[in-house]
């Protein structure tokens, strides 16, 4: 996240989207596109500026019905902003969150700490959003993704994120239909990693 983020100063709360109805619709379609096409980098709408990606996702999907977990650095900067704009309850334990907002792989808790849903209600699983332009946790590795949303003849190849992260994504997928769904946001586009994605680490 840019250091010039408007909410760096805690005394005032920065505005949300200039056109909330139109922009949240466009952001939602970006997220939908990304999760329906795992591994594909989807460009978010330009209209989200100057709101950074993690906050844009929260403005689009979070409200008083969604408990949200923030990593410490996100919480320090945005807790007030999200409470004001989304009215979402902030929770201290990752296990209790419907959404998690994480700045960088370095600050991502083990995926197993998030709620993976119940066998009868797998839709209650958490959605974990990671800003991949934040602090890294290791060198990027190359992965090959397959599964629903990926054409069989054209697996998607990414060079992003540390090996340890992808190993967790593999373990997450092994529990299907339980498991968390991931959304990676960054300058290069937004990438969905639903629990269905199959990962081969190069």
């Amino acid at each position, binding site marked *: 996240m840019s250091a010039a983020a408007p909410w760096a100063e805690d005394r005032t709360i920065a505005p949300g989207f200039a056109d909330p109805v*139109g922009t949240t619709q466009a952001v939602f379609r970006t997220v939908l596109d990304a999760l329906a096409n795992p591994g594909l980098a989807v460009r978010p709408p330009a209209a989200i500026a100057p709101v950074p990606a993690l906050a844009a996702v929260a403005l689009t999907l979070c409200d008083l019905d969604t408990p949200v977990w923030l990593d410490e650095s996100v919480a320090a900067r945005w807790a007030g902003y999200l409470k004001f704009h989304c009215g979402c309850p902030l929770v201290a334990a990752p296990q209790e969150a419907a959404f998690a907002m994480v700045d960088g792989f370095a600050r991502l808790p083990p995926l197993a700490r998030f709620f993976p849903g119940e066998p009868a209600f797998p839709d209650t699983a958490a959605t974990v959003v990671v800003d991949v332009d934040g602090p890294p946790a290791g060198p990027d590795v190359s992965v090959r993704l397959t599964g629903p949303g990926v054409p069989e003849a054209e697996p998607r190849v990414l060079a992003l994120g540390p090996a340890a992260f992808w190993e967790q994504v593999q373990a997450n997928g092994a529990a299907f239909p339980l498991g968390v769904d991931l959304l990676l946001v960054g300058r290069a586009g937004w990438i969905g990693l639903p629990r269905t994605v199959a990962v081969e680490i190069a």
Partner: protein
Amino acid sequence: MTAGYNFAYLDEQTKRMIRRAILKAVAVPGYQVPFASREMPLPFGWGTGGIQVTASILGHADILKVIDQGADDTTNAVSIRRFFARVAGVATTTRTAAATIIQTRHRIPETPLRAGQIMVFQVPIPEPLRWLEPRESENRKSHAMADYGAMHVKLYEDIVRYGQIATSYDYPVRVAGRYLMAPSPIPKFDNPKLDRSPALMLFGAGREKRIYAIPPHTPVVSLDFEDHPFSLQRWTEACSQCGDTASFLDEILLDDQGNRRFVCSDTDHCAARQAAGAGGAP
């Protein structure tokens, strides 16, 4: 746009709730996500699930097509298309290829869908096991354990009794090798169009309060048996307007002497063929 209502009718809080449900539906293909379905200005059973899904995904840049029984000009399709033109001011079309969102009741267009398009199905009964077991709590257990033996038994009983599987529409499918799913009452003729489609398929059941999805490029298999493979409906007749022999044909009774004609159920497909010079069967 209609004064006093939000863009696309639904308030933003409702849209967020439905959008979250859609994302989870995409993440667990074929699983029915419960959602707090709203009353809509159209009656339950008339497409409220599809309307809520469409209202939640629709944006100013979208071009909407609405069909019922394959046709753009059936009364309910007209009514729903007008509803969105009125509350969202979006562009509408009858051309399958021009649409970004296609809301449908009972058909998938004959024109192959492309990547980036979204099909929205209106679903009356989302639970494929409902006719075998009316209790939701029991069916929920079956889905959790992927225990679909009862459905195979039912289909097998059909074969014993009729010599074939008697289900001709809303024919159950298995999505991505896991969840058993009702494809909505499309004819089984349309089932193969679900398999590995480049388009995203969203299903909305308003009265039953369920949303489910098939992501693009996802394997969708119609249930069958090795010795009784899934088979498609076919007609020996051709469309009386465009001459097509490969599309789904509606039967039209001409008199009380048993004379009848057949026409394409998909009006856009038929019109395009006629415009390209195709003639009807005699």
